[in-house]
């Protein structure tokens, strides 16, 4: 297994893990195996003092499920949370409700759940997506479940930090209120990434680097201790990426 080619989700896990700061209090919600793995990896590498609350982790001792998680966020105790969307636009608006008109949608989706509140109350948000295409990254979302920043709300605590996809790392440029390309992964050029993004990634005149290569240490910790722990929480995802045990 150690010699197997790096899976795009493994790259995402490493890229997200590097964005996690030591000492942060971070949490992941439902259906978030990639961020969960990233937190576990960060804690075993550069962020030993990270507090990682992974929803679904049998080792997590709580009483009131998401109500308890959300209470921590309300009170400003969450530094970092992870969200995703079915549509994301240049301003960082997130849609999880409908494709098309709300009353006559092409597709109706489960909705945003705690996305709106968490986007406002966690100090920073990292968005992760398991695909990168122009159906996801659109000029304007069909429904705004959450905004990535909003100066008009005095009690809002946080903003979007980064967007991590299987092709690239993007960041939120808060001077221009826009998502811009930050780095690409090996095998994906800036041109490739821009071609499958439905809005301008602000690359003109900027030198966009490739991410630092994934180290042998990162990969061995990820495929060792991190996957072993992740199997307790996300068995189906682990079977898909690393095979069944």
């Amino acid at each position, binding site marked *: 297994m150690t010699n197997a080619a790096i899976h795009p989700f493994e790259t995402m896990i490493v890229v997200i893990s590097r964005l996690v700061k030591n000492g942060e209090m971070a949490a992941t919600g439902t259906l978030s195996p990639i961020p969960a793995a990233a937190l576990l990896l960060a804690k075993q590498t550069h962020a030993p003092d990270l507090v990682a609350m992974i*929803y*679904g982790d*049998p080792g997590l*001792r*709580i*009483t*009131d*499920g*998401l*109500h308890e998680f*959300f209470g921590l*966020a*309300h009170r400003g105790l969450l530094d970092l949370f992870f969200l995703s969307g079915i549509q994301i636009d240049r301003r960082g608006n997130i849609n999880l*409700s409908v494709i098309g008109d*709300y009353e006559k949608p092409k597709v109706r989706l489960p909705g945003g*759940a705690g996305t*709106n*509140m*968490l*986007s*406002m*109350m966690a100090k920073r948000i990292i968005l992760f997506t398991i695909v990168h295409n122009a159906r996801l990254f659109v000029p304007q979302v069909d*429904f*705004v*479940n*959450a*905004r990535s920043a*909003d100066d*008009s*709300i*005095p*009690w809002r605590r946080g903003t979007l930090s980064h967007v991590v996809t299987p092709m690239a790392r993007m960041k939120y440029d808060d001077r221009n209120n826009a998502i811009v390309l930050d780095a690409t992964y090996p095998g994906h050029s800036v041109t490739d990434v821009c071609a499958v993004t439905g809005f301008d990634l602000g690359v003109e005149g900027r030198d966009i680097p490739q991410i630092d290569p994934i180290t042998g240490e990162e990969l061995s910790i990820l495929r060792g201790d991190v996957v072993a722990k992740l199997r307790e929480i996300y*068995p*189906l995802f682990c079977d898909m990426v690393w095979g069944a045990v």
Partner: protein
Amino acid sequence: MLLGLQAGACGIPFTPVIGLLNSDYLKIRPDFKVMKDPYTGNDYVVVPPIVPDVAVIHAFMGDRTGAVITDNFRNDRLLAMAAKKTIAVVEKLLEPDEVTAGKFGVYVSSFHVDAVVVAPRGAHPTGCRGVYPLDRAHMAEYMSAAKEEGSFQSYLEKYILGPENHEQYLELVGSGGAR
């Protein structure tokens, strides 16, 4: 939604929520209003309480008084407290003294539960933490059947309408009961 249930559980007429301001939720939900916090002067969205007519929850165990133990990752206790009537489906029926929360459980008092239904493996095809896992093969079958009306109807007839009782259902899905 959780704060709406919290308001329902406490009998509060409406509740401010954190979030929702400046989102499209306000376009589709006329019952969500914006109100000034009388203390800080800041705007917040307020929502009505959620009071379900009936809540059905799944629990690890329960007793004849109606007390049950639910999963601590879920908010079934809140739901039971907010709903007018709560039906708890339990994996096993025990004596009241044996109904204790343990590592993953939350004690829900009989005050909040109206009926207890004993159904081992009653969460199938989803799992019950620490008792049995998700039935992956059955979930795959369901997801494939649910894509089209015809195949969904066949699924309903085979698994839901066909079996005369829970035991027959369990036999049909191939477990032979609790494991």
